[in-house]
């Protein structure tokens, strides 16, 4: 009846996951109870859960990422805490639990923090920057988000029902095969990523179609803000790389569920094929994450230097070059496979070449700042912190791209330090900058600057105190994924890294405090102008938060930095064009995404536990959901011209009153 699922699946003997799971469960139940008792449920359902508005979906993606960041961060604290004390002792985490923690940490941070964070920001910002009203496929957008949430939910369920993979964040066979991993851990990994991978693919298709086919009048390719370009490049990579992940994990699923021999030791299976396939996805994946961050930095640096982006066209070229070359370097993840000197040399050189367009970008940002009137706001601090940190990470990257050096550093803590250096210093700094930069656009008030700056400095210093020791320990020969160690020379570095993690944790606490304090004091932080940073692109030309239709009249673009140009013209007293309001058609809300994710959760969970009848029920449910969706008669509603005019006039009046107030002083 319940397949492999029995009461034994709940880890009553392990206090840490049980307590953690219990706390999370109580927190979720408390929030749910509050939502129901306070009567917020209809609002949540109508305005958020069933929303197909790209802005709302973007915010939900970001929220999911931030919640999962706390989960992945707790894993990190556990690991660094363990290693700070596990010198010639077992520490507080038994090996089978420690292995699950480092696997879950990597999986969560990449798939359920970094991915939803960048996709959330792209979703929110890109249609606004392109001067349009929505993405190409609004309902699919909602489906994509909810499928991502399904994957995150399954990973978290593994905390209390069964266990998670012990194989690392990429389940290398033969360890991940049924022979060596007979429990449900790897299955949790596989199904949650298959399901969220579909969600990511949907988001990628949606955003590429949006950028290529839905731009306002005059928004030529070479007038698009840089963030739109990096979004395009990143989502092209999603479309080309994520199917590889889906196929590769499907092969591993077939091995585990039906006894196929893709990656097994026996019957001719080839485990190195897994490494090749997974990294053919995995290397583009890091550029999927970091390219949008590059876009964010371009916006932030240009805005807070008060200058147009230096070398716009070279930036476009560099972005697209990275997009292509990122598919030609995957083998550098396993130089030690023994593909021979020629193959290794080619991939080593390609890996160094990809540093060139990245270097171009760094110089462009520096020259954008050069001679500018720089304002060191929190997003700008993150951007400058990124430039310093990312250069260091890039240099160690070039180091490990040299095959002979890599033979020594492969799978050492040096490598761990390198990729945290580029992913924290690149992606995480980027999404934090973007989150603070666009927060006032999303909610109509700014985040508290003081707390944000304290958070930045704790995170920035904490990062170095954590990861520089890992470089050193890696040089001293310490390999990754060790649960305890007996070598005295490593000990002080591990303690230092533990201290760094404490600093990082304080930084995260300040970020949480920043959000809470800003919400409490939102009235003083309110932004009435829609343009709190004196910025340059079209998202700032509409109100904060933007009306559901984004723009009352779709703007017509004549130059790069379209909004800057509009402001300049208005300042010169050029006559504003007469506005003719038209009724606007907007997509209707739909519960399709949520219901679909509900069935995906059921299907995924029952696949993990081999509850076959429930699998069939879940699949039928998902199909019925789609048919019901396809059967609806109207998918749009009309906002009358008078309503559009009312909303827009209110916004214009508010802005005008501010301008005249400023003028009279």
């Amino acid at each position, binding site marked *: 009846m319940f397949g492999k699922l029995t009461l034994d699946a709940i880890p009553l003997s392990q206090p840490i996951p049980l307590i953690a799971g219990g706390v999370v469960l109580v927190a979720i139940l408390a929030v749910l109870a509050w939502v129901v008792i306070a009567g917020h449920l209809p609002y949540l359902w109508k305005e958020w859960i069933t929303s197909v508005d790209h802005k709302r979906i973007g915010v939900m993606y970001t929220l999911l990422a931030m919640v999962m960041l706390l989960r992945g961060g707790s894993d990190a604290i556990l690991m660094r805490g363990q290693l700070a004390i596990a010198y010639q002792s077992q520490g507080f985490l038994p090996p089978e639990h420690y292995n699950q923690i480092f696997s879950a940490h990597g999986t969560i941070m990449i798939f359920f923090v970094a991915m939803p964070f960048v996709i959330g920001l792209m979703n929110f910002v890109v249609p606004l920057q392109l001067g349009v009203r929505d993405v190409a496929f609004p309902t699919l957008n909602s489906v994509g988000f909810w499928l991502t949430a399904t994957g995150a939910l399954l990973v978290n369920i593994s905390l209390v029902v069964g266990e998670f993979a012990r194989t690392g964040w990429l389940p290398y066979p033969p360890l991940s095969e049924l022979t060596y991993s007979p429990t449900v851990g790897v299955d949790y990994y596989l199904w949650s990523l298959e399901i969220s991978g579909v969600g990511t*693919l949907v988001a990628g298709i949606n955003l590429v179609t949006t950028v290529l086919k839905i731009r306002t009048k005059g928004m*030529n390719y070479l007038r698009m803000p840089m963030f739109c370009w990096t979004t395009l490049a990143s989502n092209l990579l999603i479309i080309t790389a994520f199917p590889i992940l889906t196929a590769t994990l499907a092969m591993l699923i077939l091995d585990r569920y*039906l006894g196929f021999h893709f990656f097994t030791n026996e*019957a*001719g299976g080839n485990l190195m094929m897994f490494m090749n396939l997974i990294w053919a996805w995995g290397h583009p994946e890091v550029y999927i994450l970091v390219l949008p961050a590059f876009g964010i930095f371009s916006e932030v640096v240009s805005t807070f230097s008060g200058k147009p982006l230096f070398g716009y066209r070279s930036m476009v070229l560099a972005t697209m070059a990275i997009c292509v070359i990122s598919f030609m370097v995957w083998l550098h993840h396993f130089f030690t496979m023994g593909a021979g000197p020629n193959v290794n040399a080619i991939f080593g050189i390609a890996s160094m070449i990809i540093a060139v367009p990245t270097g171009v970008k760094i110089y462009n940002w520096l020259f954008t700042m050069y001679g500018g009137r720089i304002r060191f706001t929190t997003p700008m601090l993150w951007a400058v912190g990124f430039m310093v940190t990312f250069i260091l990470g890039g240099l160690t990257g070039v180091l490990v791209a040299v095959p002979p050096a890599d033979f020594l550093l492969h799978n050492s803590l040096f490598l761990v330090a390198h990729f945290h250096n580029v992913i924290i210093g690149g992606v995480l700094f980027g999404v934090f900058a973007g989150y603070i930069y666009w927060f006032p656009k999303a909610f109509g008030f700014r985040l508290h600057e003081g707390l944000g700056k304290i958070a930045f400095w704790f995170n920035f210093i904490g990062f170095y105190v954590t990861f520089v020791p890992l470089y050193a320990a890696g040089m001293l020969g310490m390999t990754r994924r060790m649960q305890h160690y007996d070598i005295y020379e490593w000990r002080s570095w591990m303690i230092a890294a533990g201290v760094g993690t404490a600093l990082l944790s304080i930084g995260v606490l300040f970020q949480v405090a920043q959000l809470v304090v800003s919400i409490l004091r939102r009235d003083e932080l309110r932004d009435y102008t829609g343009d709190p940073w004196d910025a340059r692109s079209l998202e700032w030309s509409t109100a904060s938060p933007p009306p559901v239709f984004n723009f009352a009249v779709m703007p017509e673009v004549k130059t790069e930095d379209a909004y800057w140009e509009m402001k300049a013209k208005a300042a010169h007293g050029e006559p504003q064009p007469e506005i003719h309001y038209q009724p606007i058609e907007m997509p209707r809300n739909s519960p399709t995404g949520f219901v679909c994710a509900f069935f995906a959760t059921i299907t995924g969970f029952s696949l993990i536990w081999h509850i076959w009848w429930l699998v069939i029920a879940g699949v039928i449910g998902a199909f019925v959901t789609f048919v019901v969706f*396809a059967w609806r008669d109207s998918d749009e509603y009309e906002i009358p011209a008078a309503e559009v005019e009312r909303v827009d006039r209110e916004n214009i009046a508010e802005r005008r009153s501010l301008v005249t107030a400023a003028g009279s002083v």
Partner: protein
Amino acid sequence: MSMVAVTAHGHSLGIVEHPGPASKRIITGYGFWIFLLSDIIMFSCFFAAFAVLMGQTAGGPTGAQLFELRNVAIETIALLLSSFACGMASIAADVRNQFWFQVAMVVTAVLGLAFLTIEFREFASLIARGAGPTRSAFLSAFFTLVGCHGLHVSAGILWLFTMMAQVYAKGFRADIQRRMLCFALFWHALDIIWVAVFSVVYLLGSMA
């Protein structure tokens, strides 16, 4: 629609101004094309796996011993004809002819089901002969690649029947026409993949 941009100084830059968002039909078709491309990339992984594992028969039967090209030829003809029928259905949808639309879709479905039946019998006979997917890495790759295409055809037939019911119930509404466009693209894409399966798996495979 296009016009030449003129700068403040009156110089023509020769830039073609972007005319604004595309029509819904173009957006839908374009998005679906991108989906199909991603689907083809997924297939290319299974093709790559098949190419790597083709020789790994683990002492079991090889392609040359297993494949019956006559059956495969019939399958191919059935699938290609079904694409022709699907094209007819698209034309019928364009001229909004309910009767011929339904007839052409039924023909498409029958040919598709014929294809699936032959494939299913091939799989069943292989398994009965002890040449199932668990026998060797070569057979794992074979069953996965060909089976994945078969799954796509099955999903396509489910979509096809849903499409027929919808056109019957709602007529040729604009959004249903767009859906039909996507279905036709999907069905033709399955042909393209089958041509590759036929060449790489069956023709090259029976030489190995």
